[in-house]
């Protein structure tokens, strides 16, 4: 068994366009697979709940076109996970259509397209709970209650390697995945070719964020991973970047609470005993990884629940006395909203930039506000009309706050806009849980079609 090579041009396809120069350099080395993940829960709960994208369609099409044309020219599989930022069914369908459109536009020879879905029906989850199989909370969350499930708008399950491997076995040339573990997309390619689990999952782990495992810092550049039965080698493809022992080892801890363990559907990649060595100028070689299969097959679920319609307002403050009493100003505006709408059924959120808008209670300097503040006001209510009025009351009433010793009696705040703006509805993450399933493919129905 020799080796196979996979290239990854983007750590979150569509979120910002891939850089074409390093991608084309990588394509010229004739890799065996081209793959990328297109999703992240970093973007907050709105896109999942709202079933929308966080990325502009033009950027998604740009990357998909670059990858599809290269993959078809080389005759190698192309794999995409977490279509359209969230991996909901509508986003998978959208990517499938984009692939069809690009193929038609370029007159590509016929190829086999595979896709799978990963949205989960809430009734299926409810049946698990009622059947005595608790849906367990991650990160200090409680087990899922039916009330919290009722408050949830949409749920996706995080696919492991299984639907990707199935579609590769069926001979697919292009695969569009629903929500997926980013590392599983790459691991599936290696597992499909018969490489061991530990090296395969490590390959996925190191490739999933593209050039974030290289230095100097520079996102959206292509990296290449090569796997043998014993080791993984990772190479930066941008001429000005290198994969060093420090950059590759450092990447193992990126965006995770523990740098030694990576949990995926079906097991855990253990990086505790990894050894890193500089194989050549731009390549680092990693050995010593381990994979521990899970005793019970549990799939991670992400769920988002709608809180209400939302408007946003802004107000500036320059008077030092008003700055010192900004909490009283906010209290005044809240009380006016309460007089109008009663104590419940709406929300106002105030972020006081210039004091602690970014860090909230964690801000060590919150007692030393700047000489001017910007207060961002979010008003949330069941209907748009009410949300607009809640936000308008919560914003404009700051102008009329009654501070006892204020000198400026013509208006307590400044406005950039004398209006409030409609924003996306407010959602919250309701599910960050795992659910037991008997069949790894149970939540991920697959489909294929010939394109062209």
């Amino acid at each position, binding site marked *: 068994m020799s080796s196979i090579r996979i290239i990854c041009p983007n750590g979150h396809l569509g979120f910002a366009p891939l850089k074409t120069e390093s991608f084309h350099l990588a394509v010229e080395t004739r890799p065996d697979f081209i793959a990328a993940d297109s999703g992240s829960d*970093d973007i907050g709960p709105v896109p999942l709940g709202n079933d929308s994208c966080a990325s502009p369609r033009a950027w998604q099409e740009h990357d998909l076109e670059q990858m599809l044309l290269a993959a078809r020219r080389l005759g190698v599989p192309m794999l995409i996970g977490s279509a359209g930022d969230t991996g909901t069914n509508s986003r998978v369908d959208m990517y499938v259509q984009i692939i069809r459109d690009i193929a038609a536009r370029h007159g590509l020879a016929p190829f086999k397209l595979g896709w799978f879905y990963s949205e989960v029906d809430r009734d299926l989850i409810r049946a698990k709970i009622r059947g005595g199989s608790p849906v367990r909370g991650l*990160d200090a969350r409680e087990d899922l209650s039916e009330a919290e499930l009722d408050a949830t708008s949409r749920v996706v399950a995080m696919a492991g390697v299984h639907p990707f491997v199935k579609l590769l076995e069926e001979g697919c040339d292009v695969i569009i995945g629903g929500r997926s573990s980013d590392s599983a997309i790459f691991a599936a390619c290696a597992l499909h070719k018969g490489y061991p689990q530990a090296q395969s999952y490590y390959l996925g782990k190191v490739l999933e964020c593209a050039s974030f495992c290289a230095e100097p810092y520079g996102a959206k550049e292509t990296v290449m991973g090569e796997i043998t039965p014993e080791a993984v080698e990772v190479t930066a493809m941008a001429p000005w970047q290198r994969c060093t022992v420090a950059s590759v080892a450092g990447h193992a*801890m990126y965006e*995770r*609470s523990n*740098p030694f363990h990576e949990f995926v559907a079906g097991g855990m990649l253990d990086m505790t005993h990894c050894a890193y060595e500089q194989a050549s100028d731009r390549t680092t070689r990693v050995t010593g990884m381990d994979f521990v299969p899970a005793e019970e097959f549990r799939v991670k679920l992400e769920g988002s629940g709608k809180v209400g319609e939302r408007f946003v307002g802004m107000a500036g403050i320059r008077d030092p006395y008003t700055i010192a009493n900004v909490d009283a100003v906010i209290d005044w505006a809240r009380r006016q909203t309460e007089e109008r709408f009663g104590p419940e059924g709406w929300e106002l959120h105030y*972020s006081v930039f210039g004091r602690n808008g970014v860090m909230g209670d964690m801000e060590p300097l919150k007692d030393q506000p700047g000489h001017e503040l910007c207060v961002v006001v979010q008003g949330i209510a069941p209907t748009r009309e009410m949300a607009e009025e809640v936000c308008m009351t919560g914003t404009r009433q700051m102008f009329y706050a009654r501070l006892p010793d204020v000198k400026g009696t013509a208006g307590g705040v400044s406005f950039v806009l004398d209006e409030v703006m409609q924003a996306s509805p407010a959602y919250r993450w309701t599910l960050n849980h795992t659910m037991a399933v008997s069949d790894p493919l149970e939540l991920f129905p697959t489909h294929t079609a010939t394109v062209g």
Partner: protein
Amino acid sequence: MNAPMNATMNTRKKLSDLAKTIRSKNAGTDKITFDIIFRERATYEMVKRSGALTRESVCRILNVAPERLTDFVEYDPAFAIKFTILRVRPSGSAGDGDIFGAQQYAPFLDVEVDISA
């Protein structure tokens, strides 16, 4: 350096002058993780010995109760000190000022380290 130099000050440096990377980022929807990464082993070991970054000091700097600190790891392969806290509410909830958790590291730039450690 404009500050007056004296014997005490000579033994202290800011973490931002010692570390290659000081960053924060979401670790899933409910946590924020912090990475303090050093260029070379000697600096990393010195900062560890100094006691400037411990479970206690990190909680004090961020004004969080100890039970919100879920992980504190000294990660030798990358010369890194890494710790993770639970958020007050999940990322992107209305009122969250930092959906990505990417601007929570600033208080660590100015942490003073006893370089004689």
